[in-house]
């Protein structure tokens, strides 16, 4: 089993996300993380799916996704083939902010992005292993809340959805 990132370019169509996720549900495959947003191209959405499966499964899944009528193109990549990041937010009570915590924040190159009377919110971006490491460190400091995004990814290999769309046969 390997970790893969699938980049899916779709029309902005109600229900498209559902059509894609049921492909995984039906096969009993867990989606590790999923993000959806506008892509660089007007009107085209980009869905980034992180999943841990076998090589055979990832090929099969990608083909099934591409079969969806409103999917323009789906590409799958190994972790080596993508540049990716996840953002994590950590909420700590204000009285936990002792020099120890401040040192950790500096070491990790994390940022305090909000400071209220009762708490602070720390932001840290990196790979899951990194945001997880910070989580483990902050837990003993009365961590109030934690939230981590799915990965956003850019593929290293060259491909162009625009070119694909231009080559209408």
């Amino acid at each position, binding site marked *: 089993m390997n970790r893969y990132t699938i980049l899916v370019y779709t029309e902005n169509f109600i229900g498209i996300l559902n059509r894609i996720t049921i492909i995984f549900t039906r096969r009993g495959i867990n989606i590790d993380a999923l993000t959806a947003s506008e892509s660089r191209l007007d009107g085209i959405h980009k869905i980034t799916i992180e999943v841990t499966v076998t090589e055979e499964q990832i090929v099969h899944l990608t083909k099934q996704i591409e*079969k969806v*009528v409103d999917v323009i193109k789906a590409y799958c990549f190994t972790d080596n083939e993508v540049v990716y990041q996840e953002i994590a937010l950590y909420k700590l009570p204000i009285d936990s902010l002792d020099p120890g915590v401040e040192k950790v924040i500096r070491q990790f190159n994390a940022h305090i992005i909000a400071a209220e009377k009762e708490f602070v919110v720390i932001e840290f971006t990196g790979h899951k292993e990194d945001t997880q490491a910070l989580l483990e460190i902050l837990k003993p400091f009365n961590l109030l809340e934690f939230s981590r995004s799915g990965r956003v990814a850019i593929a290293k290999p060259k491909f162009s959805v625009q070119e694909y769309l231009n080559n209408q046969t």
Partner: protein
Amino acid sequence: MIRGADIVVKSLIAENAEYIFGYPGGAIMPVYDALYDYSDQIKHVLTRHEQGAIHAAQGYARVSGKVGVVLATSGPGATNLITGLADAQIDSTPLVCITGQVAAHLLGTDAFQETDVVGLSMPGTKWNIQVRSVEEIAPAIAKAFHIAMTGRPGPVLVDITKNAQIEFGEFNYVPCLGIRSYRPYVRIDQKAIDAAATLINTAKKPYVLYGQGVVLASAEDQLKAFLDKTGIPAASTLLGSGALPQDHPSYVGKLGMHGNYAPNLLTNQCDVLIAVGMRFDDRVTGDLKRYAKQAKVIHLELDPSEIDKNVKCTVAVQGDCKVSLEMLTEAVLTNSHHDWMQKFRNLENEEKEAVIANDLHGTHGGLHMGEVIHLINKFKEEDAILVTDVGQHQMIAWRYFDYKKTRTQVTSGGLGTMGFALPAALGAQLYDYKKQVICVVGDGGIQMTIQEFGTIMQTKAPVKIVLLNNNYLGMVRQWQQLFFDKRYSFTELENPDFIKIAEAYRIKAKKVTERDDLEASVAEMILHQGAYFLEVVVEKEDNVFPMIATGCSVEEVRLS
């Protein structure tokens, strides 16, 4: 400006829809009201259940090669379509289903007869959409027809809210000619053709398996030309039957769990396997780990997601097999394979002696299902259509029916839906009243959609219905006998007087229990002008052989 409901009907007419199979209800009433004005341009068939409507549309689509159109109301009307959608999806049958929906402002409020039809039907449709305003109706229907019919066909569903049906809008129908995210056809790779041709030219024991893809691509002539040139033995899947006339010299029989002996056994002896428009279903392959491991595999297939799905191929030829077969025929050498073919014929003789002779020519004891099919062959026209339900009778009818023409095989393959046959036969018959449509059903399955006798009565469709009555859910009983120590748990049926039921619907009916009466009765049925119901009481505990038991390899096909 016209009403949305009129736009629905005019759009269907613009797509040359001939029939609508449907059932009315609150959320679709505006469309039904509109239909009243267009009865000279489009025919509506009122079935007795929405499942009947969708199976009838499937039968129509399968024999006509056109899109089957279904109309149903919201809530229960729509949910009654689900079985048919799943069936059409797995058997690649083009359908456009239109369902009414509660008014847009009521969506999500649990309004009366509101159900999430788009959500429910998503896994069972190639595409679906909800339309909430009048101007979206015609483009949605245009897109629906395009998607249903192109590429690998399939069912689509358009859910139209009631407000959209009663709003007024302009009607200006623009057929859909393409969708940028959807490219059903690709240019066929000449390199793949050349690689395939090289394999075929050097093969000693090449073997062709063909499926419904050939029929869907209208590539029957191309398949024949390829086989004529190469002399390669060819076997059919369940849904491929009819794509090649069975008297063609290359034809060697049928594949799968209850297919023929030689075609299954020799799959594991060929050196090059050429699969055309088929998807290596588990009922065809048996244990995949022991399936054709010795062979190089060439797969001619339109749907890229089918390539390497179950069987890894040496050469994939992706694209429309009508085109690829023609290119391949061009590229291969003229050849013949007498010795290899002879192997098929020898094993065929073994099967004849061990199974077929007794199945078709019983002399004592109860009647066999095969005898009935054998007699049907004797009297049927060449282009008669066989519609079957699911069970032992399905396998026997398929095994022994003499397929001569394409689009004469209508059965529920991938889903195995009991109750499919009666409505599907009706739909097939409506496409052409003059064709013989013979519907073979079991005593279990007929009771799942028996209400469609009513539609047969009302449409006067001259369907010939043959009930092979073994008083059992026979196929399940066979498995209980073979794999569950004969523990016949809830498979015996206490049946009604079927003749009285048929007659209550004014369908001419006859019951046969004796071998001596069978031939005359089958002849009478086939020659009868209108609908006819023939009940044949058959041996209760006959089994279908050959058989590849679950988990076994194709070479473990057993004759008894």
